[in-house]
């Protein structure tokens, strides 16, 4: 085998398994601790309405995180997640409102469109043999620009009531039904990466492309598949956000869709997915998003400067990546001994 260890695949007794577990357990402890502290300090935090609002945000941020996670695993990244998400829901919004297609058909159309835009990123990355950074930087501008030109920056705000009501369902513990959709997506991803051939090929290609190629893994195809999957997940997040907003808004992810970048990187990076590729943690990404959502919601509830939340999230990301680096360093030393 290659000397490059693949955490989580060294067997349940390997030292890497313990690290992965501790990463996720750590996130869970911080999140639970934060929930307890905020419930005590901020009276509104555990109100039914806030739980509902929080889980709606969480459901969307989890899927945005997944959308980035599936490209990080290839060692690449996707700056265009927001631009793809918005472009896809504008197609979906058009299909529902203008073409009058059934909701399910429109949603599938939006997902397929997102997947196609993502796959285009993958194909360009492979064909041009450059890092996906520059490809997705360009397509972020391209997709968003085309979307604005085609829609004239107009929203689709007369969506069918049944679609909008999907986001309003509450389930037990006042949680938004959208959270279950995100959990199902997470379970499917977990199954894909741990129990299918293509999933294992993706992990192998991400960890060491040349070794994978020599073992007969179609590395190029895994890259296109991952980017396509990322596009579809971005479209899914976009559909949930559209249902929540009640309209397909060109501005819902900010200028060029860049507002999604911070949540997209925070969740997987906090959850232990490495930027170098080859590893991922579906549960970690979920917990990473949960921690971020709880902390930012709690700070808003405490009313300690609503304008400072973004700066705070930036500090969390910086601290997280530095700590992760430190941990890798310590682990490497231990392994030598």
């Amino acid at each position, binding site marked *: 085998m290659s000397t490059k260890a693949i955490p989580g695949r060294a067997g349940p007794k390997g030292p890497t398994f313990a690290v992965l577990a501790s990463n996720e357990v750590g996130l869970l402890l911080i999140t639970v601790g934060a929930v307890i502290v905020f419930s005590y300090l901020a009276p509104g935090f555990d109100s039914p309405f806030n739980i509902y609002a929080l889980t709606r945000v969480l459901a969307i941020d989890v899927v945005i995180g997944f959308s980035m996670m599936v490209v990080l695993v290839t060692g690449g990244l996707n700056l265009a997640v927001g631009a793809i998400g918005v472009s896809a829901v504008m197609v979906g919004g058009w299909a529902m409102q203008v073409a009058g297609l059934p909701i399910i058909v429109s949603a599938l159309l939006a997902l397929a469109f997102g997947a196609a835009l993502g796959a285009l990123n993958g194909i360009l990355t492979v064909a041009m043999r450059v890092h996906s950074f520059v490809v997705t930087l360009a397509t972020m501008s391209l997709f968003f620009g085309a979307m604005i030109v085609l829609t004239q920056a107009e929203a689709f705000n007369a969506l069918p009531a049944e679609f909008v009501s999907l986001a309003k369902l509450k389930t037990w513990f006042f949680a938004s039904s959208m959270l279950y959709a995100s959990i199902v997506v997470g379970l499917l991803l977990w199954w894909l990466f741990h129990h299918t051939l293509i999933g294992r090929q993706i992990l192998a290609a991400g960890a060491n492309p040349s070794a994978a190629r020599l073992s007969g893994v179609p590395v190029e195809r895994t890259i296109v598949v991952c980017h396509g999957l990322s596009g579809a997940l971005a479209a899914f997040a976009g559909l949930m956000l559209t249902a929540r907003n009640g309209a397909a808004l060109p501005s819902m992810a900010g200028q060029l869709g860049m507002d999604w970048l911070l949540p997209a990187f925070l969740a997987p990076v906090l959850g232990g997915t490495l930027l170098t590729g080859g590893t991922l943690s579906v549960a970690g990404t979920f917990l990473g998003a949960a921690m971020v959502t709880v902390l930012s919601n709690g700070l808003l509830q405490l009313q300690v400067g609503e304008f400072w939340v973004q700066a705070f999230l930036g*500090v969390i990301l910086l601290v997280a990546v530095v700590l992760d680096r430190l941990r890798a360093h310590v682990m490497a030393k231990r392994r030598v001994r």
Partner: protein
Amino acid sequence: MSATMHLLRTDWFGLLVAFAVGAVALGLAQPSFLSTYNLYVMLTAFSLSILIALSQMVIVAIGQLNLSVGAIGGLAAITFAGVMEVWSVPIPVAILIGLLVGVAGGTLNGVVTHVTGLNAFVVTLATLAIFKGTNIGITEAQPFYEIPDAVKSFGNARFGFFPYLLFVSGAIGIAVWVFMRRSVLGRQLLAVGGNLNAAKLSGIPVGRVVVAAHVLSGMLAAVAGMLAVARLQLGQPTIGDDWLIISFAAPVIGGAVLAGGHVSVAGTVLGVAIIMLINNALVLLNVDPYAVQLVLGALILAAVALSRFREPA
């Protein structure tokens, strides 16, 4: 090698031809292109964009990237405007404070990337959120309106079609050109970007060079932010929000290799000029102004594809 071949091989010659052809064609198609006012408006945007592009270019030179260029520029802009409005700080001191914001931001980026060895992408994404978040935290998303008249009139001043702002960015552009070509540090930046290990083995203080590049990038972004305040006549918190694409597009069109080690100041400036020309053409020819985003994306892809074609891997 003949002189013509030499010219053809430079990064900037093809761009200069493309720019000249484009400018002549636009002038013929739309005579208002050559009106004094249109040229002035174009050159004003050009002045700011040169600095934004150079701010990214010095980081591309060391083989990294800086997502926080706009966030540093925005934070410097509102600090510059804020200290003048709130504390009535004299203009030269305010400029100095704005520059210090750029130095501090760049130092943070440089030190963290160097010490941790982390990908500059994720570091500058985090600092982008920190700088932009601090900007929003300080301003609560409201602009500073009370800018001294001297700053305002400087932002509007022009000789015919030549904005005063271009004196500042032109001088800085020349300084960066000299720095990259003639100074030891400038050559060290390219050496670090070209081959990190070789640079280390040749005794180049890599850490110092990386931090210096980020500090320079931060200062260039800060100057761009302060010039934007002068041009807009207010300390707008959204300054810098739309800098990212152009900051990469211009150096890449100008022949920079994103892996590091090769950048061209002249190419970058011409890259900005071509983008400004396209932008202006879209406006004058009544095409949807938002189409510029689309065109910029396509241009980046084309430039990268072309560079792969010029030197196959």
